[in-house]
């Protein structure tokens, strides 16, 4: 059996969970047709019903007041017992911030492998392997778990398509499983999530965006990109390191920890194309990448690419736009 651990906020499933269901179904098929089950920590909201309605396999909800607000300690305690008693061959989750927070501890407590950020499944029924990026996406590794099952696997966001879930018309069963968690054993005390002060710029409405990355070298060189933004009537945006360094405000950061945008035109200048950046912009209609490294992963999502020095190419584009 393959066990999916669902992720939800106050009972509302996230899309990454559906992507993980797709990955689980593909893995199940590769292993010769194993069943897929789903565990939902915390029994609030419609998450369990929604999963059951899709008919993908038995759903188990883990019930204890300590699971209402997420903490890594409570999740690890609840899931150690459940995983041990259900004996799955694989336990799969999306590679979200929450999974990063507790799954390594869960796998370590059970002394089992955890393979993270997986983009594809390969290998045979007896020896499946998992593809994951290494060296900032410059290389892809094929990885094999060692030792006795279960093996934990987290899947990269967007690597599998949520709309490809194989649903069945027969509703799956939902079982509530009471787990006992000693409140006193939970060491983290979480407060309510919040957003920093309201953003002054809403890049999600921009028709054109010029985004700069570390290839811009220094704050003093930003006008190179700004002149292009001006010539295009575009908003300026950036990769995370540019905002970390304080060269542009945080609210102009694109990516998993910043804004998600989908403009008509997205121009990436000196951005390598890390997955955390790509998830924020790959829905753009037309993507142009300018990068001096022909192997930069940004070209993976670009419609048009120019390999070269942005300090030569950008002024040439500005000059071209200002012609006519």
């Amino acid at each position, binding site marked *: 059996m393959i066990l999916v651990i669902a992720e939800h906020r106050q009972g509302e499933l996230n899309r990454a969970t559906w992507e993980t269901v797709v990955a689980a179904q593909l893995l199940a098929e590769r292993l010769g047709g194993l069943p897929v089950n789903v565990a939902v920590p915390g029994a609030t909201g419609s998450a369990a019903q929604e999963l059951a309605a899709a008919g993908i396999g038995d759903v188990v909800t883990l019930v204890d007041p300590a699971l209402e607000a997420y903490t*890594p*300690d409570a999740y690890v305690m609840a899931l150690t017992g459940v995983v041990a008693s259900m004996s799955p061959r694989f336990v799969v989750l999306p*590679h*979200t*911030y929450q999974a*990063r*927070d*507790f799954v*390594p*501890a869960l*796998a*370590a407590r059970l002394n*089992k492998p*955890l393979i*993270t*950020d997986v983009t594809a499944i390969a290998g045979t029924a007896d020896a499946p392997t998992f593809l*994951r*990026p*290494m*060296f*900032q996406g*410059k*290389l*892809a590794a*094929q*990885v*094999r778990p*060692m*030792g006795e099952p279960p093996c934990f696997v987290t899947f990269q966001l967007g690597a599998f398509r949520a709309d490809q879930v194989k649903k069945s018309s027969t509703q799956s069963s939902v079982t509530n499983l009471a787990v006992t968690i000693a409140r006193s054993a939970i*060491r*983290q005390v*979480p407060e*309510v*999530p*919040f957003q*920093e002060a309201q*953003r002054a710029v809403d890049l999600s409405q921009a028709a054109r965006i010029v985004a700069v990355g570390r290839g811009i070298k220094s704050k003093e060189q930003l006008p190179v990109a700004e002149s292009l933004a001006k010539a295009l009537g575009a908003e300026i945006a950036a990769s*995370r390191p540019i905002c*970390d360094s304080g060269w542009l405000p945080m609210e102009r950061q694109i990516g*998993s*920890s910043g804004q*998600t945008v989908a403009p*008509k*035109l997205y121009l990436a200048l000196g951005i390598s194309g890390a997955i955390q950046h790509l998830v924020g912009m790959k829905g753009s*209609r*037309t993507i*142009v990448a300018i990068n001096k490294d022909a192997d930069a*992963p940004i*070209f*993976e999502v670009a*419609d*048009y690419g*120019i390999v070269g020095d942005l300090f*030569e*190419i950008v*002024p*040439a*584009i500005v*000059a*071209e736009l200002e012609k006519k």
Partner: protein
Amino acid sequence: MKIAVCIKQVPTREWQPRLRDDKTWIREQDVSYEMNEPDAYALEEALRLREKHGGEVVVCSAAPARVQQILREALARGADRALHVEDDALAAADACVTAGALAAAMAEEKFDLVLTGLQSDDQGHAQTGVILAERLGIPHSTIIMEVQVEDGRLRVKRELEGGWFQWIAMPLPALLTIQSGINQLRYATLKGIMAAKKKEIRTVPLAAGLQRTQQIVALAMPSRAKQTQMIGGAASEAAKELVRRLREEARVL
């Protein structure tokens, strides 16, 4: 406060990958190395906490001898001493082995606070810190953007997706994985570099009996899914062609 910072040595950003003949690891003789970026932020945060609350900052790494280059760099930036678990096998070790190696060497030091980066720029497991907390038997929190210490307790700001955050409180000792951008980095001064020469780097052997839990069977350049239209030629010609295509093909101008 006695603070540990785990730092990893990773290939520089400019490094162009070349593989070893068996294609399961990189050709290390070609590589120049630097400090993993989030680890540099973790070190800076530790130095700031020491300035505020007093105590000691110890940098820890599990790696071949070559890591002493960045341990010295960390000492030059202000760390007090270093702990080096040395073994050639640690170069390509998985997160379980690395965390186990660090835990074995660090346990007796009884640190009040352990900081790691949230993820390494080479293997990128995003696991080592959390496993280390589990092995040391201390609570943890991940992807941290602010650290406050009050009355022997921690209050930390955890980054969530899409611009959300959350404060978490927990007792010390504890482990935090630090996100890049938590602070502004300082660089080593000449004085710091001179002082570092006299600071201690204690080397200990790799603990026996650590089992790997995963194995790299092949490394390769990632396959390209999308057919990007590459535009070549001199800058002015490429610019002209790009603008033409954006106007006529993509119709976005």
